């Protein structure tokens, strides 16, 4: 269970964060939520799909690390095997929370930084210090703050992106049937991607609107990222083969 506390330099003055990448530290995730501005960096390694948030039914984008729950094909004994790690992973164990504040007689919701004290990354002995000796933020924490800020801006700003895509019928559902070299099969359902046929049929006015709003680039990044599916499967096949070889040897 997560135990989020408002981060402050008194309660958390000795807080350190383990920044290694491993399943034990909670990186065994098969996807992470992302936002359009991050698509360009992600598509070099990860397929980008859309899913529906089960709480409100709204679309959100995810970067995929595996093809089944709990599987992160980028993790090995050396850590996370890709030069770009999604911001939603890098922020761990911090999260933006909200605090209600009185301001000019009105209640406003203000974003604040919280930390999950039950995270296996939290330590007093090992890892990167969060605060400097006299209470200032460490270089590490400065970096986390900017990640949290990008995430917050990116996620809250992406609603209009999905609205535009939905209105143009640019999102379609798809089912990915995965067959591995050893014959085993998996089915990925509940994922959505760009409908390229609809995209090709858009008229100049619609394309201009997408371009002006900065949506055209992320749309093509999602399409480009589709070829990362076969990369994922290749890693999975190799891991399986290695595991089999190990068992036989």
């Amino acid at each position, binding site marked *: 269970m997560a135990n989020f506390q408002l981060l402050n330099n008194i309660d958390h003055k000795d807080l350190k964060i383990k920044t290694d990448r491993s399943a034990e530290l909670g990186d065994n995730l098969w996807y992470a939520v992302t936002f359009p501005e991050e698509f360009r960096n992600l598509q070099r390694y990860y397929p980008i799909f859309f899913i529906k948030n*089960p709480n409100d039914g709204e679309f959100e984008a995810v970067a995929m690390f595996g093809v089944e729950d709990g599987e992160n094909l980028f993790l090995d004994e050396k850590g996370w095997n890709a030069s770009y790690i999604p911001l939603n992973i890098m922020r761990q164990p911090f999260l933006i929370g909200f605090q209600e504040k009185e301001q000019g007689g009105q209640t406003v919701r203000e974003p604040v930084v919280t930390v999950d004290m039950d995270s296996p990354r939290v330590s007093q002995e090992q890892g990167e210090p969060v605060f400097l000796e006299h209470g200032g933020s460490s270089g590490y924490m400065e970096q986390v703050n900017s990640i949290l800020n990008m995430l917050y801006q990116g996620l809250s700003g992406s609603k209009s992106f999905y609205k535009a895509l939905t209105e143009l*019928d640019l*999102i379609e559902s798809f089912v990915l049937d995965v067959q591995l070299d050893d014959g085993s099969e998996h089915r990925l359902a509940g994922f959505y991607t760009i409908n390229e046929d609809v995209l090709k049929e858009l008229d100049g006015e619609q394309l201009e609107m997408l371009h002006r709003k900065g949506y055209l680039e992320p749309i093509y990044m999602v399409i480009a990222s589709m070829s990362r599916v076969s990369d994922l499967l290749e890693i999975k096949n190799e891991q399986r083969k290695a595991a089999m070889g190990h068992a036989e040897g």
Partner: protein
Amino acid sequence: MTERIRNIVILGGGSAGWLTAGVLASEHCITSNSQISVTLVESPDVKTIGVGEGTWPSMRETLRRMGVSESDFIRECDASFKQASKFVGWVTGEPGDHYYHPFSPPQGYGDVNLVPAWAEIDGAPRFADAVSFQPHLCEKGRAPKQIVTPEYGAVANYAYHLDAGKFGRFMQKFCVEKLGVRHLLTHVEGVDTNDNGDISALRTGDDRVKGDLFIDCTGFSSILMSRHFEIPRVSTTDVLFCDTALAVQVPYPTADAPITSHTVATAQKAGWIWDIGLPTRRGVGYVYSSAHTSDEQAERALLDYVGKRAANLPASPRKIPIKPGHLQTFWHRNCVAVGISAGFIEPLEASALALIEMSAQMIADELPATRPLMDVVADRFNKRFLYRWDRIVDFLKLHYLLSRREGSDFWIDNRRPETVPDRLKELMELWRYRPPGRRDFPQIEEIFPAASYQYVLYGMGFKPDPSAHQRRLDDRKSAHDCFRVNQQLTGKYLNGLPSNRELIRHVVTHGMKRV
């Protein structure tokens, strides 16, 4: 002179008229085809009936094909999700007497016959409860789909409860704005005919609305078919006695009260009471036989049912005559009746809107190219719909036939052999030794599938005797596998589905996605 059928004129603007207009206009793409036109003429001073608040799952396909957004439909028609009918008190009238007729077929339907295995279970559970997860969802007030399920998609098969008045206005707007239907608000004073007796135009003051095909959607007045052509009616009161309804609207105690996702039909002394949950109110009505009770007694029974909320009803009960029966011929010359003008019967299985959809779809599919061909199509239409009406009468009668209720002439008279159609009697004999199957209902688009008959038959406590033959489909192991799968699905769906109220609230505020 051209013989082509190009101009379709619909008279009457209730749900029947607008639904038919929508199906014809969308199936024939009239916005992009100038060869064909659909005009709906309605009188500004005729009130629509506004009953028929339950649909069949077919309505999802009908709306989807027309291009209606399901979210808009839910919002603007005050619609909710319907998954079943629950019959309370129909077997004995004792406490705990109820059974479900859900929209999802029995588990393994078509591959396994669950009836013998179910009948052998000691202290067998209710048939529908054993073979379908849906009654369990209904009992727990669950929605038939998740928040992430796209428009018209389902986890459990579903239909709608809707406000018929709002539905008519919603369809009107959609037909006129999106589908290119011409709308004339004017009073029709008479009918012009050709030498051959065909209708050539509707007279509206000094004007004429000309057409090649006329569709009578004028409800009880049946202006073209009954009044103009004097087509005789076939009464079904000798089989189904209910001929009057008293309807009220009942407010919810609070705005977030649960919305029941099935129609509740509760047996009464001389008929039964429907109870339909819309998002903003309930629609409740007593359908009764005027030969077996008085209007005063019926009103008292209705208010008793409504209970303590009866004190602050927004309006007193409204009386609706039913005149159960249908036209002898639905399509005569160049005129066809759709909706109540074609026939009306107690709404026990919500057949009214389903029949409108089927009629409109058949007219659209088989729209004759020329006038001579129209006689061929009319003959096919008449045979098809006479068959359908007979099946509706059989199926509704089945609900009464197996009742063991005593102490009221209505129920006792309903069991008299002379009131039972011959075909139903034959089927009852066949079903003693085998369950209802597809060969009993051989037409395509049967109005009620064999699965529906199974739910009612065994729900009413009919005891099968499967000893005569043992068939491959009767395999007990497969049947028990199905019971187990049904239990697993029940648990899974109960966990994963929101309440009906929650889902409706979500649809109203956020809408559903098309994908």
